[in-house]
């Protein structure tokens, strides 16, 4: 009971230690093993090739996905306690939330080590039984990769929270104790390094844009990164990594899935950042030292959205070019639709600049409509061939033109 977390909140730990509450769930772990075994069995049974590797990507990418989920949870209750799933953290000061974060990471590390073993075992056993002893080395490598992923990810997380490298939000900074502020100050070199790397990203992102637009593109990139690193930089890095992996690993087995991923990941990222785009536009109009026309601001947004799309376009084209040349047309059509989506996204972002009272949800809604539309077009393209995008795109262009004329007349 010497643990301060228990004194702070009985419902966080109660009389049972926090770790045991999380890890002490043998029932859950046995179900995990059963599900993993079933998944492994099904995957391998469905795969007709002699050396079945269908489970490998699933196994290797499950860990980062899970770590990402945990990071998002911790990020949630540390930086945005009001939006957190753990209601009890709302009333806690930053120092206590940091304490809980540290304990949570430690507890999750133990739990995940157990889960990873219980999930990996059936996969590897079934695989070795099916493929024979020749695959033992490869199976061992996969097991090691999973363990290494876990160890490195949790190591980084522990370093972040134990060394006070996670930055409190603005509200917490005001109320943060002197001791914590002092310790945070020790990491100023780290934050300066981070600030420099953000600047480099912003400079690189605007390098090939027109000279008058460059500073505004840099500002927009910096705004997105500074506002929410996870939704902008984190998701984009993860998305690009996923795209590369899917293109490399899945394009031969499931080309449609790889193409769909390359199309929808950027839309999802833009969807996640929609509110920030709007907010940035509002802010730009209120700061007197910026001067930008509506048209130029649209171009800036278009450039930034294009930057999000670019790696996936390349990924999709590589995927098609290497393996399935016949799909080029449908992917090009889908990307065409995505470009229209870009225009809509850019235009919607600009509304905030023009009308600061515009609803925050309009960007998100526009992207949602676009996502639904893209999937509809994709399905129709697959069924009816390239006629659908060939007819659909001019129709969208016409609608956009009418919209633009309407805006020009009424604004």
């Amino acid at each position, binding site marked *: 009971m010497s643990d301060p977390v228990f004194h702070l909140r009985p419902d966080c730990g109660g009389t049972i230690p926090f770790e045991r509450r999380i890890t002490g769930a043998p029932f859950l772990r046995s179900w995990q093993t059963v599900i993993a075994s079933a998944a492994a069995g099904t995957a391998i049974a469905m795969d007709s090739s002699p050396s079945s590797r269908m489970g490998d990507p699933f196994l290797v990418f499950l860990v980062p996905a899970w770590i990402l989920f945990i990071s998002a949870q911790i990020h949630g209750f540390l930086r945005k306690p009001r939006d957190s799933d753990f209601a009890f953290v709302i009333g806690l000061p930053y120092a206590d939330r940091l304490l809980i974060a540290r304990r949570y990471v430690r507890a999750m590390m133990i739990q995940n080590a157990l889960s990873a073993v219980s999930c990996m075992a059936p996969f590897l056993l079934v695989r070795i039984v099916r493929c024979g002893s020749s695959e033992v080395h490869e199976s061992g490598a996969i097991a090691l990769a999973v363990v290494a992923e876990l160890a490195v990810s949790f190591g980084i997380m522990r370093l972040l929270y134990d060394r006070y490298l996670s930055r409190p939000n603005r509200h917490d900074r005001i109320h943060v104790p002197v001791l914590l502020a002092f310790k945070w100050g020790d990491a100023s070199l780290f934050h*300066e390094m981070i600030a420099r790397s953000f*600047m480099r990203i912003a400079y690189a992102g605007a390098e090939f844009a027109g000279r008058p637009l460059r500073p*505004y593109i*840099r*500002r927009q990139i910096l705004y997105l990164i500074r506002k929410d690193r996870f939704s902008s930089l984190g998701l984009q890095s993860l998305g690009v990594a996923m795209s590369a992996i899917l293109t490399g690993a899945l394009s031969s087995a499931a080309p449609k899935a790889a193409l769909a991923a390359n199309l929808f990941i950027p839309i999802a990222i833009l969807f996640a950042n929609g509110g920030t785009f709007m907010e940035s536009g509002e802010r730009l109009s209120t700061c007197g030292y910026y001067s930008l026309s509506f048209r130029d601001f649209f171009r800036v947004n278009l450039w930034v959205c294009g930057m999000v799309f670019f790696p996936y376009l390349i990924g999709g084209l590589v995927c098609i070019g290497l393996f399935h040349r016949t799909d080029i047309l449908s992917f090009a059509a889908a990307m065409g639709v995505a470009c229209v989506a870009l225009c809509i996204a850019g235009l919607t972002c600009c509304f905030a600049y023009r009308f600061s009272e515009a609803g925050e949800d309009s960007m998100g809604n526009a992207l949602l409509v676009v996502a639904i539309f893209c999937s509809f077009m994709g399905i129709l393209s697959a069924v009816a061939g390239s006629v659908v995008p060939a007819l659909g795109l001019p129709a969208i262009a016409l609608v956009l033109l009418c919209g633009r004329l309407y805006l020009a007349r009424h604004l």
Partner: protein
Amino acid sequence: MKFALESVSYKYHPTASFCLSDINLTVESGRVTGLAGANGSGKTTLIRILLRQLVDYQGNYYIDGETVHDIAANLCAKYGIGYSPDIPVLDDVLTGYEILGIVGQIRGLTRQEAEDQITLLSSLLDLGPWLRVQQCGEYSHGMRKKVSIALAYLGPVRFVILDEPLNGLDPVAVMAVRTLIEQKRGDKVGTLVSSHILDFIEQCADFCILMKQGTLIYGGGLRQLRTLHGNKRLDEIYLSLFRAEQKR
């Protein structure tokens, strides 16, 4: 560079009384002009007219002999005018250094030039290491004010308008602002300082504009004003002029 106002009057609402009435004034770059007046005397309105933030005024406004109404381009960009508002408005999410870098490039500086100027302004105004690391939303009021003043002087500006620059600044920062203004005067950059701190205006201004209830009490050289009033201090002169206007 010369700003000239001829019989300029302004009211915020058609039925309201004039906020500024019949202002005739000339402000030139290359010198420091102090703007003082009672609360509600129209100092900020005058500044907003000079920046063309308010356009529906009566009378004529010229910059270098050109009628401002005929200028289509952005006034601040065209003539190199920097402005620091009374309440600083900054991009709260970005750091001060990032904002300064971006604004420097908008004003046509290269990356290296912007870096040099930021370093210079940072050391003059003592912006400290927080400038590069902390987001503006986390700055104190004084720090925000200093960043806003640095923004006004950044780049190839020819004239700077500072609205209440001393609000929230500590004595060291006040000295730093004064040094900056004087240094920029040496570089032929003119400054219009609106302030209630008459000592500050007396110390750094060459010309002086005194306002009361939307009218001009005095607009001319500070030395001439003091000579006219027997070399009294500016606050004493201001008080005597203010009372004389009240009696009238």
